[in-house]
C-alpha cells in the first residue's frame, strides 16, 4: 500500500540558511500534519492543512511557513535556521471525518534536518 512520502530524507544546512521539506500524502488523503521531534523528545505538532487551508497551528516558529498545494502535497519552509531546529520532521496524512472521530494519521519516514 502507498505510504506517506517525505523528501529529502536527510538535509544538512548551515545556520541562517533556508530549507524546504516536502510531503506527499497517501492518495485520497486530503489532510496533512507536520510534527517536529527533537533529539530524545516526543513529536510536537507544528501545523496542519485540510483541503489546502490551514486547519490548526501549534508551536511553529514565525520563521517557518507551510502550505498545501492543489495536488495535496505540502511543503514546510524554514528560514533563518538555528541550531535548535535540528530535529526529525514528520509529515502525517489522514482522511478527515468532520462529523466523527479523528481518523488515523499515517506518518512518513521523516526528514532529518541537521543545522551546523
Amino acid at each position, binding site marked *: 500500500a502507498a505510504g506517506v512520502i517525505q523528501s529529502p530524507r536527510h538535509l544538512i544546512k548551515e545556520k541562517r540558511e533556508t530549507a524546504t521539506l516536502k510531503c506527499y500524502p497517501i492518495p485520497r488523503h486530503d489532510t496533512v500534519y507536520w510534527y517536529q521531534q527533537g533529539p530524545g523528545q*516526543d513529536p510536537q505538532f507544528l501545523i496542519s492543512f485540510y483541503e489546502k487551508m490551514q486547519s490548526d497551528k501549534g508551536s511553529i516558529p514565525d520563521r517557518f511557513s507551510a502550505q498545501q498545494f492543489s495536488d495535496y502535497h505540502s511543503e514546510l519552509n524554514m528560514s533563518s535556521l538555528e541550531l535548535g531546529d535540528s530535529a526529525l520532521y*514528520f509529515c502525517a496524512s*489522514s482522511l478527515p471525518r468532520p462529523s466523527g472521530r479523528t481518523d488515523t494519521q499515517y506518518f512518513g519516514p521523516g526528514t532529518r534536518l541537521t543545522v551546523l
Partner: protein
Amino acid sequence: AQSVTQLDSHVSVSEGTPVLLRCNYSSSYSPSLFWYVQHPNKGLQLLLKYTSAATLVKGINGFEAEFKKSETSFHLTKPSAHMSDAAEYFCVVSDGAGGYNKLIFGAGTRLAVHP
C-alpha cells in the same frame, strides 16, 4: 485540554515474558487514543487505536490495549516479548472531537528486550 502520561520512561523485559506499557490520559470528552511505535532511526508506525468501539483493542504484532474509562488508562500489553519489539512506544491522544485534530504525544517509553 487533552494529555497523556506514560508512567514509565524505560521498561526492560526478557524475551518471551509479558510486556506492559502504562498510559493514563486526561480528556474532557471521550477521547481517541493511539499507540505508535518508533524503531531506532525510523518513522512512527501505528500499533492500534481506540475510537469508542470495543474497549479491548487488538493491534499489530500481537499487541493489544484496553480502554478503561474509570481508571482513565490505556495500557499496552503483549503476552510474549520478542527481540524485535525493542523500540520507543508513544501513547497518543487526539486533541479535539472533530475530524482533523492534532495528536498529542506522551513522553514515550523505551522498551528493552533481553535474551
